[in-house]
C-alpha cells in the first residue's frame, strides 16, 4: 500500500516537472509570437507577424532537432522545453486559419492568395532547407573533427 502511494507521488512530481519545463518554453515562445504580431502591424492588415513567426519556427525546428541537439549535447528536457514548448507555441496553426478566414471574408483575394502561398509552400520549403542546413553543418563538423 505504501509503495503504491510512493509510486503515485513520484509520478505526480515527474508530471509536474514536465509541465513546468514545457510551460516555461511555451511562455517565452508565445510572447515572442505575440510581440511579433504587434511589431509587424502594417496599415494594409496583412498578417506579417504570423508569417514571420511560422516560417522562422518551421526553419529552426529541424535545425534544432537534427543539429543543435547533438552539437551541444542538449538533454531531453532542454529539447522538450525548446521544441515542444518554445517552438511549438511560437508557431501556430490556428491563427493562420483565422487570418486566412479574415482575408477571405474581407474579399482581399490577392492578399489571401499571397498569404496561403507564403505559409503553405514557404513553410514546407523552410523546413526542407532547415533539414539540409542541419545535415550540412553536421557533415562539416565531422570533417573538421577528423583533421
Amino acid at each position, binding site marked *: 500500500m505504501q509503495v503504491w502511494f510512493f509510486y503515485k507521488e513520484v509520478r505526480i512530481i515527474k508530471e509536474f516537472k*514536465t*509541465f513546468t519545463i*514545457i*510551460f*516555461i*518554453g*511555451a*511562455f*517565452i*515562445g*508565445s*510572447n515572442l*509570437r*505575440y*510581440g511579433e504580431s504587434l511589431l509587424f502591424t502594417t496599415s494594409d492588415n496583412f498578417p506579417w507577424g504570423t508569417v514571420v513567426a*511560422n516560417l522562422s*519556427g*518551421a526553419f*529552426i*525546428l*529541424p535545425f534544432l*532537432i537534427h543539429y543543435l541537439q547533438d552539437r551541444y549535447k542538449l538533454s531531453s528536457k532542454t529539447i*522538450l522545453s525548446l*521544441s*515542444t*514548448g518554445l*517552438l*511549438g*507555441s*511560437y*508557431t*501556430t*496553426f*490556428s*491563427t*493562420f*486559419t*483565422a487570418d*486566412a*478566414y479574415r482575408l477571405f471574408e474581407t474579399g482581399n483575394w490577392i492578399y489571401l492568395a499571397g498569404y496561403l502561398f507564403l*505559409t*503553405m509552400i514557404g*513553410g*514546407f520549403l*523552410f*523546413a*526542407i532547407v*532547415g*533539414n539540409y542546413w542541419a545535415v550540412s553543418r553536421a557533415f562539416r563538423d565531422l570533417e573538421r573533427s577528423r583533421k
Partner: protein
Amino acid sequence: MINSLLVGFGAGLGAYIRNFLMQTSNKIKIDFPFMTLLINILGSFALGYLTASVRDKRMLLFLGTGICGGFTTFGTFNMELSQLWFQRRFFSCILYFSLTYIFGILGFVIGIQM
C-alpha cells in the same frame, strides 16, 4: 504587461495538453502523424468558435492567442511533412499536407458559424 502574462499562461497550458496528447498517441502504432493533424484541426475549430462567442478582448487573448495558439503548432507539422518527404513517402506527404490545410480551415469556418 498583463496581456503578455495572459498569452504566456494560456500557451503554457495549451502546449502541455498538446504534449500530453502526443505522448498518448505514441502508444498507438500508426505510421502517420495523425495526432498533430487532429490537434491542428481541433485547435482551429476551437479558435473559430471562440472568436464568434467570446466578446471580452482579454478573455479572447487568453483563450485564443494563448491556449489555441500554444495548442496548435506549425513547426512540428512542417517538420513531420519534411520527414515524410525525406523518407520518400510522397503520397503520405501530400495527404498530410492537404488534410491539414483543408480540414484546418474548414474547422475554423464551422467553429465561427456555430
